[in-house]
């Protein structure tokens, strides 16, 4: 694999040089364009294509229709303040409860994955593979339907909130476990040795020395996970929730079907972006900071 790659590279490099030397020595002005001019021409062409595409979209789209369907300001106005005080609040609530549950479970699974006891490692490995390999929607349906069937008479505490926390938590725990495991393993081995040689037990060293360092390493990917969860909370749509429990996606869809207009969908979408874009910005800042601080 790597051999073909390097071979290819070498070959292209060769042709380039031969072309360049041939061009320079034998026919310096054959095409009448220097390399810099060629580059400028190529870039100019790309601008032209872009502008043409945007213009084509602008001309062919039915702007009146779109505005009617997606941007009716009075309809959008009706959604306030409920979309914030109810829908966005619920979305945040679902996300945070799912994140907390996933973080706790993920931490346990990560430690199991690193355990010296074989069955713990295998169980954690299977859990991670299964829950990363299944669509989140399927797990939501499973939580809603299969859990009450499997344990008759048990009610998931917290009602819908509990179900959502469980569904989101189960999914995110698998991803978080892998992130946390990688974070723990990124802490140099000497740290554990130093702690042990000072008389820390393995567990205490993990808690006092390794975890705080691993935690710093995983903050950026964890924030990313939070963004993913925030979006996945929309799957509540399929759980059948009361009016009071609706979150952004459900709220937007219900209103859209009531009014036979898509404006609520657009507004709900903007509410998602209101949170995800700043969070994404934070992630990039944290990553840059982590990159700077590498020892």
């Amino acid at each position, binding site marked *: 694999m790597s051999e073909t790659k390097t071979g290819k590279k070498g070959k292209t490099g060769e042709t380039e040089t031969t072309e360049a030397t041939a061009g320079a020595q034998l026919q310096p002005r054959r095409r009448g364009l220097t390399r810099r001019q060629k580059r400028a021409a190529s870039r100019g062409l790309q601008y032209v294509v872009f502008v043409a595409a945007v213009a084509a979209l602008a001309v062919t789209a039915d702007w009146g229709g779109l505005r009617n369907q997606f941007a009716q300001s009075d309809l959008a106005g009706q959604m306030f303040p409920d979309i914030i005080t109810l829908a966005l609040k619920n979305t945040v609530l679902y996300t945070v409860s799912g994140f907390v549950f996933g973080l706790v479970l993920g931490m346990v699974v990560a430690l199991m994955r690193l355990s010296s006891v074989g069955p713990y490692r295998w169980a954690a490995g299977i859990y991670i593979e299964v829950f990363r390999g299944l669509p989140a929607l399927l797990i939501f349906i499973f939580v809603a339907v299969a859990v009450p069937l499997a344990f008759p008479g048990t009610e998931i505490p917290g009602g819908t909130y509990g179900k959502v926390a469980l569904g989101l938590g189960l999914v995110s725990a698998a991803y978080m476990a892998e992130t946390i495991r990688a974070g723990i393993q990124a802490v140099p081995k000497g740290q554990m040795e130093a*702690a042990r040689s*000072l008389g*820390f037990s393995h567990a205490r060293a993990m808690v006092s020395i390794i975890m705080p*360092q691993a935690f710093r390493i995983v903050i950026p990917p964890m924030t990313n996970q939070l963004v993913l969860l925030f979006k996945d909370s929309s799957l509540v749509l399929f759980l059948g929730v009361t009016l009071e429990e609706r979150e952004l996606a459900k709220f937007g869809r219900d209103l859209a079907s009531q009014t036979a207009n898509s404006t609520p969908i657009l507004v709900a979408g903007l509410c998602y972006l209101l949170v995800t874009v700043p969070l994404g910005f934070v992630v990039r800042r944290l990553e840059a900071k982590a990159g700077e601080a590498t020892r």
Partner: protein
Amino acid sequence: MTTNTETANTETTAGAPEIRVRDLHKSFGDNEVLRGIDLEIRQGEVVCVIGPSGSGKSTLLRCVNLLEEPTQGQVFVGGTEITDPDVDIDAVRRRIGMVFQQFNLFPHLTVTENLTLPQRRVLKRDKAEAARVAAENLQRVGLAEKATAYPSSLSGGQQQRVAIARALAMGPEVMLFDEPTSALDPELVGDVLAVMRMLANDGMTMMVVTHEMTFAREVADRVVFMDGGVIVEEGAPAQVIGAPRHERTRHFLSRLLDPATAEVGETPERMDKAGR
């Protein structure tokens, strides 16, 4: 086990042996790194372990506080057999200070916190007591003014001195040094060696794996030369370093003193100590 300890105690005559290693073997897979080591270090003695890379000297040191689990043999520290599976190894390690080649300071803590956290978590000292001991030991290694700094802002030599202070703050009976100056720029070696010399003068029992022959010659009570997983020769520094009896020791020392005389392929591959 008790009978063993008793025999060991009656066997020795002069000065209580602080460290006692008996027929120690250690294998990594098929690779037998230690092939039967017997060694005794008395209280207050400074023993330097020298030898080529891969001779097993670091592994021997790591076996003394059980960072490596010996395959066979016994290790006694202060009369306790630490290789006994029933022994509380965390309790034993509190009595053994260890200094690593790569310092291994906790990068997320300040210098003072590096010293106080182990005292508080492991020895359950209260905050004021831990702070007092930390300040005292930082003073001792000449870094009192770096108390609030983070390790990353210190030079290698300063980091290693903090690492020594961190180990001392636990009040150990024995100090183990695993090539403490090998990762340092040459001009920073002196400060660390000075601290170690001071410790030796204060009567600390020390086992030092090192390539610093001048230090070994001047500070050590005894020098142990290892090669191929066995102790080839041991004795007073003037004898082992000054007038080695064995050809292997002579060969090693001549290469160490004048590396330019080594022939191609003679130097064995350096073992990755930092990675282990």
